[in-house]
């Protein structure tokens, strides 16, 4: 263009504010990385100083105790995700494309669940998993997670299936496809983007959760999840070596970072729709 921009005071101030916001946003995370590369003594004595020399030991030591919880988190998220996707696809399709008695009533009963705060369900759900004798097993996490996470997914999937053009289903019906055939061969392949959205939003919610695991998993460390270990640490249980903890935090963040970064578009979409509908 070649047109020189006028440097006004407003221009300078607005740029400075952006830089300030960026620095304050990044500061805690830079400090975490800094902590993870220093031995404990250096964290208390020289908090702001850069690691010199870089102390990689934190990471190798942290891996030893955090690897299993991270794996547990991934395992729980994976199994739950599998069931959530199946249930969401089935229910979303039924409510979006099928006609049956009681459809409206049942659907509004699902919508109403959105109003119940998670906190209120903690106590009764604890009694339910206790009654099912699954406390201290992964099922104590998986089953309530599937029950809770499906709701948002069904709402998303229902509107997706409802808005699909009817012609393709008509054509398939004429070709002799049954209800199940249409679901499996037409609806499923088309619904990939919406199911990815549902999947990523629920995985983030499940991986991030630490309140329910602290209630449902009270036994040994070998069944605890990553965020639960972090939370326990906040409560003063576990090691006091802060460099080690910082390294463990970074290791446990990586799986979620990879998962969300690779489907960020879908994640944001899911949250936006959730924001409008919820």
């Amino acid at each position: 263009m070649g047109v020189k921009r006028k440097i006004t005071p407003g221009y300078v101030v607005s740029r400075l504010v952006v830089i300030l916001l960026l620095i304050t946003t990044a500061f805690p995370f830079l400090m975490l990385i800094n902590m993870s590369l220093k031995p404990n003594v250096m964290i208390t004595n020289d908090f702001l100083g850069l690691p010199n020399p870089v102390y990689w030991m934190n990471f190798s030591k942290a891996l030893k105790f955090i690897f299993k919880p991270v794996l547990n988190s991934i395992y729980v998220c994976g199994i739950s995700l599998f069931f959530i996707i199946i249930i969401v696809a089935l229910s979303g399709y039924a409510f979006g494309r099928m006609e049956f008695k009681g459809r409206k009533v049942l659907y509004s009963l699902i919508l109403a669940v959105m109003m119940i705060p998670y906190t209120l369900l903690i106590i009764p759900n604890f009694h339910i998993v206790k009654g099912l004798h699954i406390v201290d097993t992964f099922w104590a996490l998986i089953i309530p997670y599937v029950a809770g996470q499906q709701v948002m997914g069904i709402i998303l999937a229902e509107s997706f299936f409802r808005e699909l053009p009817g012609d393709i289903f008509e054509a398939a019906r004429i070709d002799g496809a049954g209800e199940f055939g249409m679901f499996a061969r037409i609806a499923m392949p088309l619904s990939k983007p919406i199911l990815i959205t549902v999947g990523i939003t629920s995985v983030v919610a499940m991986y991030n959760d630490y309140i329910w695991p602290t209630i449902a998993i009270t036994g040994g460390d070998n069944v605890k999840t990553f965020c639960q270990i972090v939370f326990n640490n906040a409560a003063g249980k576990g090691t006091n070596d802060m460099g080690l903890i910082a390294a463990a935090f970074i290791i446990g963040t990586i799986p979620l970072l990879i998962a969300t970064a690779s489907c960020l578009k879908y994640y944001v979409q899911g949250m936006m729709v959730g924001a409008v509908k919820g």
Partner: protein
Amino acid sequence: MKKTFCAKMIPYLFIAPTVILLAVFSYYAIGNAVFTSFTDKSSNFIGIRNYVDAFHDEMFLTSFKNQVVITVAAVFFSVFFPLLASELLFFIKHKKISGFIRTAFVIPMLVPSIVVILIWKYLYNPNFGFNTILQKIGANGWIHNWLNDEKTALFAIVLIGFPFVSGMYFLIFHSGLNMIGEELYEAAIVDGATNWNVVKDIHLPNVKPYTKIVVTLSLINSLSGFGLVAATTNGGPGFATMIPALQMYKVAFGDGNFGYASALGVVLFLVIILLTMVSRKLLKDGE
């Protein structure tokens, strides 16, 4: 005949897993919570005594006061800073730079929230963190045991996550601003509008629906969660930073008094429902 019956049953088969799970983990559960709220520690029916006790419980009343402070601050910060950041970003026309800034604001959102909370807990540590910075700049008088001092604890909790830009709310405002049609700007440029005119006359009126979404979301988030307080002060010192949801959790799983805890939960539930309805009504009125 048999086939039609089967065909009629197919939809119910599809929704069966959902219905069963919700019947148990939502509807039975909420009924159970309400029922439990009328019982005492040994499951005897005691009527509304738990509710009467709740309104005479000094801790519960303080909890509600703290919750008001936390929620008002949370809603304000959730609107102000993300909107500020997306406005500033809007006027950066250099594609690469604005793309970099957006990424820099979004990445921290992908870090587990409990990790972010714990980083802040370290920054509030009496021996290092913010206190190191204060010491470096010679402001020794400002050094506090932030989370353990009754005067600063609630304030410190409210500021966790400052400047509150990274995350969903920023993305909502950011995409909201970019959704405004080009023709409005063209007209403004013809009229010789300054950037400030653009913000005041085009952005703020058009971004209103997004502001309402953010207000509703941050309101519900702030009212129903208690993880942040549980992980930082656990309600202390004393009960200076106690909030209703955390108190409910502690009464249930600490003291084992599920009846009283359920009553606290039901009260909180009613407050949330009421506020959600009010905010929805406001949301609808504007459209």
